[in-house]
């Protein structure tokens, strides 16, 4: 096995991991703030892909779809928080999980009614069709774009959380919501925004994954399991953990696909089991709440 091939496969793994990072990030941010695990996250990823596809065909440009789908689906996520999840704060931690699980049934079946059960191809934007010569091999332009875009989104998110007033409120709210309320912050509005952000990230992941996978109503269920594995490995609630674990899982999948293709679907679960046996709270998780 020659080195260039391994490097190309590594890049593929990073592109795969980048989508996982964005998706898992949405899940982990919502958990860190609200203590809610959104079981409809995979379904919202799928809806994001459909919304991106629909908006792209409506406006004639992939870029409008990429921009508008996460915003629209994020707003839809805020509606979900406002109408449904909000009623469950203070009840058993299982209840939001169960509710969002039921919601995923409604969302998946709703998409089947509107768009049909068959998969729809998601065309790659014309500017990104083809491959780029990297000197050691050819790499699809679109995958390179995904890696760059995810990096930009991560930096922007990190800057917002660490350097702005809003980020300060969010970080403080994650640590102690009661004190934040005493200080005069309307924590309900922060939670609403964070839930919207989490869902928006799921939708962004869906649009980005669209041209790499086929778009169908069931695509969310696999993504949900993948996002769970990533957040469990990284540590639920940890942003750094989601990034590291997402890349780890993406790279392991594409590396194993190179040497033992039939093990590719299994490797991430094995990775998770090993991490759990050694560090039940995940690589960057805080002990107490979850393990």
């Amino acid at each position, binding site marked *: 096995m020659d080195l260039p091939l391994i490097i190309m496969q590594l890049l593929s793994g990073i592109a795969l991991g980048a989508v996982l990072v964005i998706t898992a990030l949405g899940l982990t941010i919502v*958990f860190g703030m609200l203590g809610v*695990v959104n079981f409809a996250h995979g379904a919202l990823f799928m809806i994001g892909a459909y919304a991106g596809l629909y908006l792209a065909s409506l406006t004639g440009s992939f870029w409008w779809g990429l921009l508008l789908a996460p915003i629209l689906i994020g707003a839809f996520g805020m509606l979900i928080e406002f109408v*449904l999840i909000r*009623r*469950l704060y203070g009840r058993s*931690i*299982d*209840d939001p*999980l*169960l*509710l969002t*699980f*039921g*919601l*995923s*049934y*409604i969302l*998946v*079946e*709703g998409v*089947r*009614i509107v768009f049909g059960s068959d998969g729809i191809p998601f065309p790659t934007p014309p500017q990104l069709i083809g491959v780029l010569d990297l000197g050691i091999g050819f790499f699809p332009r679109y995958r390179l774009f995904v890696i760059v875009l995810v990096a930009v989104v991560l930096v922007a998110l990190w800057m917002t959380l660490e350097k702005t007033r809003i980020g300060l409120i969010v970080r403080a709210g994650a640590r102690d919501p009661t004190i934040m309320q005493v200080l005069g912050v309307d924590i309900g509005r922060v939670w609403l925004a964070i839930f919207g952000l989490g869902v928006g990230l799921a939708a962004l992941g869906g649009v980005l994954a669209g041209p790499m996978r086929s778009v169908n109503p069931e695509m969310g*269920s696999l993504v*949900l*399991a993948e996002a*769970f*594995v990533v*957040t*469990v490995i990284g540590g*639920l609630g940890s942003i750094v953990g989601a990034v590291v674990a997402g890349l780890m899982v993406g790279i392991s999948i594409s590396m194993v696909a190179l040497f033992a293709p*039939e*093990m590719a*679907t*299994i490797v991430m*679960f*094995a990775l*998770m*089991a090993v991490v*759990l*046996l050694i560090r*039940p709270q995940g690589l960057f998780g805080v002990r107490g*709440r*979850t*393990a």
Partner: protein
Amino acid sequence: MTRPSSGEVLAKSAPSGLGRILDHRVLLSIAVLALLPWLLPSKALAVNVLIYGVVVMGYNLLFGYTGLLSFGQAAFFGAGAYFTGIAIGRYGVPWFAAVPIAVLLSTGLAALIGVVSTRTRGIYFSMVTLALAQLVYYVALQAASFTGGENGLRGFTVDRISLFGLQVNFLDPVNKYYVLMGFAGLAMWFQSRILNSPFGAVIEAIRENEQRARACGYDVERSKLVVFMLSGAISSLGGCMLALHLSIVPLDILHYQTSGMIVMMVLLGGARSFFGPFVGAASFLILEDVVSLWTPHWQIFVGAIFVLFVLFLPKGIWGTLLDAIGVGKARQ
């Protein structure tokens, strides 16, 4: 482990006459199930209620009584079915031996998954069980030479069953129902014994207050692992019943959608109640039966009804009913 002295208290605290009748829960449940084929529109539906009832009952031990929300019960339901089918079809094992072998192997699988997943708590546990059950799904998908892969497991049929020298035609739906009811009765007796035992009190103590149970000297981790295995064993028996009933095992049985369906059923019926799982399985399957007659998109209704139950009726149909007549509260 020291024996808890309060083991009997839970069972004995039902004061009313009605409560005393419900103490014979196994016999009562069997009596109701015996009438089921004549109450439901089709015998096939009744068999399904029986099978899913047993699966959900096993799951209820974990979720309802111990408070562990697993999203991976399909792994054991599926394992029971696959092991039964492989034992009969590939190795020519007679059905009465295949069932205990399958349950034993599935319990082993539950031990493996349990060792990893019971190390985690709360929401983590739900996510980890889901992921590990998906692992089982992909293994079954890849090991196509054993499991038939995507096409499911075929090539084994149980058409005749000899019971105490009596030949029973297993293709007749009524015969089939009552043979399978024997399995269900056995599972119910076993579950009732667990709940009435000191161990049953320990798992309920863990649900009510894990730290306090630990402070009382109980080995919480080991109890969780044991209850995980018992729950898997009972649910896998439902899988054996399904294999005997269908003579095929569809791959979908292992998918997490099946785990989700089990969760829905236990919530619709009522977690923490003995007969709730059967009520839940029956309501879910009847709903599916009725709604799918006039729309292929029945899942949207199931999802909506489930959301409404989580919001407004978290104790489920049977649990709310027991509360209404005052039995449920007295038993808690």
